[in-house]
């Protein structure tokens, strides 16, 4: 049976949305945590933030604050003294080193463990599991060996070849499901979009929450939230995000985009076009040196890294990974971590921080590697241990 399934590159999607917001005059503050909601009587006036890079605390004021904190939306609402009951559902998935399929493959059954195999970029992903976890654990979710075994055995039923395909990484996230308002026990979960006007619901002005839903419905969620904001601000204008493509997606496929810019695009240029769409033409390439590969596995050039630092607010290796896929390939950040850290250190003039950033990055990569630590993954892991501890001295 054929269903109209598609897959999306969530990294590119987030970066493109961020860029779109910036192009429309918005400001984006990464590495900035909301630590408090400023409330005067029954009105929310703004937020208090902490910048993790600079350590600076700052307050921002606005007539409306939108809580889009995903599963952490409960904590954010609590800061304003409002109760939103989240139902955190952990899901684990496995990322395979290359594609075994070119279209989404689903099990034809009620939603269950490991029933979907999704191709994406150079990899394919099998998922997912689902288990309720306490809210406190959301910040540090880990994949268990049992989940790995379950994903492999179930995944093999979708594509037997998965049994002999190298697993790159195990990954876990938390779905922001919401317990229905009239059912605090959380048994009756809404899988739909939840848009809460806290003025109507709780008598607190100036705050709305948008949560629940799915990635698939993210644009609609945003439309619902902005429509509500507009209503409160007295703006009467129709939402346009459904008709205007995101930056970089105005023109055809990545192959067409690459051909428009380069006569004979290199592999690195083609994959960059797939990552960025037409925005790829803005990659800094003042001289040949910008073409130097920083990450061989994912074909990321120095020009692309520097563009991400300049234009996409990448201030840490993790940001860079999300913007460019640096460190996400088969070697899981073997050499590129150091090279990219060198470029970040140069751009920000902060060497001390970058050193610590490498440690953090290696730990993050290991977190998704040890649950699948056998075969080539274990070989790479042993190599990484020697190279970083005994050869580089980290």
């Amino acid at each position, binding site marked *: 049976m054929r269903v109209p399934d598609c897959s999306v590159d969530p990294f590119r999607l987030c970066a493109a949305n961020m860029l779109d917001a910036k192009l429309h005059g918005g400001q984006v503050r990464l590495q900035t945590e909301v630590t408090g909601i400023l409330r005067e009587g029954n009105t929310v006036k703004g937020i208090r933030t902490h910048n993790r890079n600079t350590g600076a605390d700052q307050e921002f004021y606005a007539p409306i604050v939108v809580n889009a904190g995903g599963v952490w939306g409960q904590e954010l609402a609590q800061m304003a003294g409002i109760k939103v009951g989240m139902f955190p559902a952990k899901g684990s998935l496995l990322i395979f080193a290359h594609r075994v399929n070119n279209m989404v493959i689903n099990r034809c059954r009620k939603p269950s463990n490991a029933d979907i195999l999704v191709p994406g970029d150079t990899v394919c992903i099998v998922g997912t599991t689902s288990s309720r976890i306490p809210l406190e654990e959301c910040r540090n979710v880990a994949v268990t*060996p049992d989940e790995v075994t379950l994903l492999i055995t179930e995944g093999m039923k979708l594509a037997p070849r998965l049994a002999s395909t190298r697993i790159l990484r195990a990954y876990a996230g938390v779905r922001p499901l919401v317990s229905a308002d009239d059912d605090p026990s959380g048994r009756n979960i809404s899988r739909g979009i939840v848009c809460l006007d806290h003025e109507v619901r709780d008598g607190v002005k100036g705050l709305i929450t948008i949560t629940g839903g799915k990635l698939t419905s993210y644009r609609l969620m945003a439309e619902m939230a902005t429509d509500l904001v507009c209503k409160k601000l007295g703006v009467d204008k129709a939402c346009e995000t459904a008709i205007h493509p995101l930056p970089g997606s105005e023109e055809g496929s990545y192959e067409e985009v690459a051909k428009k810019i380069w006569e004979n695009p290199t592999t690195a240029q083609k994959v960059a076009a797939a990552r960025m769409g037409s925005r790829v033409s803005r990659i800094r390439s003042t001289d040949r040196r910008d073409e130097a590969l920083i990450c061989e596995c994912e074909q990321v050039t120095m020009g692309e890294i520097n563009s991400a630092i300049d234009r996409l607010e990448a201030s840490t290796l993790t940001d860079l990974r999300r913007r460019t896929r640096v460190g996400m390939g088969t070697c899981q950040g073997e050499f590129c971590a150091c090279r990219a850290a060198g470029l970040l250190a140069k751009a920000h003039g902060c060497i001390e921080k970058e050193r610590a950033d490498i440690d953090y990055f290696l*730990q993050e990569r290991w977190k998704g590697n040890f649950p699948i*630590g056998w075969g080539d993954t274990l070989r790479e892991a042993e190599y990484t241990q020697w190279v970083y501890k005994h*050869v*580089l001295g980290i």
Partner: protein
Amino acid sequence: MRYDAVIVGGGLAGLTAGISLQKAGKKTAIVSTGQNALYFFSGCFESIQEPTPEILSLFSEAGVRVHYTPGVRLMPMGTFKESALALDDVSLFPAPDFGKKVLIINFMAYHDFFSSFLAQGLEKQGMECRIRFLNLGDLAQPELGPNQMRAVQIARKLDDVWEKVVQEVRVLLKDEDTVVLPQVFGLNDASIPERIRQGIPARVVFAGTLPPSVPGIRTQNLLKKRYEVLGGTYLLGDRVTGAHVYEDVVQNVVTKQLDRHYLEADHFILASGSFFSKGLSSNPFKIYEPLFELDMDYDTDRNTWYDPTFANHQPYLGFGVKTDAEFHPSRHGVPVKNLYVIGSILGETHPELGSGAGLAIRSALQVTQLITGKP
């Protein structure tokens, strides 16, 4: 072809065994698939706190220049690590604060040498640092492309023009007492690092780059050459694919390229390395030695193989082939009489022999003694 000993794996352990057996008048062959851990070598021999005369002559006779100076070495990221025995490229200091003013030399468009991290590390020790970039294209034509700026390619160029680097450094040098250079010198000529030291009127320190390691490859080449000069047969690029074991004795091994020909010998030495070199293999259910299916010393519960913290010691690194005091392994509980296991495939099952290079060399020398019957 019948040998006194056939050695599987031509890394540091296999080469050490091969060289010392040839020296003792034995006829040996080494079969080795290719890259081994020396390609990534830091230049320091781990866990050799006091080298025996035997270890020192192993190197000096091969033309590998080592020095024994217990102290600390400068690591590529600007930290320091204790070491005792090192290649001549690597300077060992009594303490990290070895200088006052440092000139760090890097190459333009070279991303594998971390001059700014080095400077930061040295500044922490109270040193004043200046970083200068040389343009390799000015020194050697044709210029390397942006993706050829890797240690070995650069070293190949520099083998011919290293003297120009010395001149450039002399011009750049002001009142610095130390010059730090990347470890990209002397790929095919072990004397170059020393000659650079003589040419520059300051202390010269070579600091590591991202792999592959130029001093490591040079060391591998010199040891291999020494082995062949002694009459050993090094079958490079071949792979042992199987073995015939009759009762408790290895009869012969089969290689990929020799096709139906067997390598027969009185003794067999397994020096095939650990996971990285595929001497050990693993799947979700077990860790095993793929060639002979030797009995292993490890915990079968996969949950115990790792420490979730990357920086901590990883239990899997300790797993290895189980052997008796004479390095004989067993299969299904039965000891194999004429097979010996040496090097990193032993994991941490012989802690008294140390780890890394120390383990590889010591286990190889001990097995040589057992085979030759000489103390």
